[in-house]
């Protein structure tokens, strides 16, 4: 039975889950999307634990609201939309907490320190540190640009898919991606100079 289900497309699986409440179909979809969603949400929030929780919530939402999915849309765009919305909500909550807390933002501080003092040219070549710098630079990009850049350049989705996920027009998606990339390039300028 499992073998048959695993051969099915995402859309067929969700239909099976909708019509017959088949838990196996749901589990297969979870297995297929947990990692891409985790990657997307992590790049967006920069926190593993938070990302894991968000993806769990995404899957729970999918389980609860399975009937709200309509077959004319792609399952991948639907689940990415849920995850993206939850990630944005989490960021908003985080920002609100920052406003009311007296503590300074450690992340931004560490980025500035890393940018100017600590990272030497030979160390910058080190992939791990480089990845860390890129991740921190990504977090410094405006939210509205960050999600589309991640969807395009990290998740490698098409412009049409991104437009569907974000609910924006194709033109807006392209311009936002451009602006996001520009911001990111400015932030990462010193890495490429070395």
């Amino acid at each position: 039975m499992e073998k048959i289900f695993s051969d099915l497309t995402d859309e067929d699986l969700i239909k099976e889950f909708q019509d017959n409440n088949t838990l196996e179909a749901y589990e297969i979809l979870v297995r297929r999307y947990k990692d891409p969603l985790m990657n997307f949400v992590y790049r967006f929030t920069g926190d593993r634990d938070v990302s894991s929780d968000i993806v769990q919530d995404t899957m729970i939402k999918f389980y609860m609201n399975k009937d709200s999915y309509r077959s004319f849309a792609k399952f991948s765009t639907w689940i990415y939309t849920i995850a993206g919305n939850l990630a944005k909500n989490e960021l908003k909550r985080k920002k609100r907490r920052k406003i009311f807390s007296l503590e300074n933002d450690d992340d931004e501080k560490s980025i500035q320190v890393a940018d100017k003092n600590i990272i030497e040219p030979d160390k910058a070549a080190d992939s791990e540190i480089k990845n860390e710098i890129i991740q921190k630079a990504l977090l410094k990009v405006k939210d509205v640009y960050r999600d589309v850049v991640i969807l395009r350049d990290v998740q490698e989705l098409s412009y049409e898919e991104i437009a569907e996920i974000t609910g924006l027009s194709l033109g807006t998606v392209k311009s936002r991606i451009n602006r996001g990339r520009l911001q990111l390039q400015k932030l990462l300028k010193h890495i490429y100079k070395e």
Partner: protein
Amino acid sequence: MGINIYNDNEEKFSETLKALKELPKINAPDNFEFNLMLKIENGEIKQEVVEKRESKLLWILAPAALVVSTVILFVTFSKPQLDEQLAPLQNQGSIYAGKVKEGVAKEETGQVAMNETKTSKPVPNRTKAPVQNPPFYIDPSLPLVKDYSVSPLNKEGAFNLDNLIQGRSAAKPSNAFTVQTGGIPDELLLKSGAGKPSLKERKAVKDSLKKMVSQNDSLKLRKNIKR
């Protein structure tokens, strides 16, 4: 899910794009599925659904309650004003009704007769103690209404057309100082000096009398001269 190259600017950002693509893929923790299924089996989802329903109910009920309470408050506090707007004459009527009642009270105490038309001085009742009535207040903004309740016919069964037009009843003497306010006879209104001629009027009468006397004197003088 393959990349479709729509953007010409992608070459401009080639280094950035390369760096982004080389980023390591972050995978979900190993116990992700186990935790998820545990949550589903433990009924955490059901709880969430119930909470969601409650919160939805709250969202619907809260504004509804607010609207209802606003309407109740509005109706409670704006009712007298509404009454005034809808039937302003009713309120005036109530004022006059009060005045009429006052008149009746006076009649009972023997101060004023209801149908008395002359502005006579109130006769104190010797058997009953005089009741102190509060002074009347006549709203000057109220419209003047002629009192047609008093018959225009006099004792002979005839009536003076001029008097009727001017609003004076036949029973009233023409020189009586009457104030027709809101259709209430003056006798019912306790007004200071309402029935008495004012100082100016007295002076005018006095002057006219003096004139008459002087004219009379002058006529007598002329007669004497002729003689």
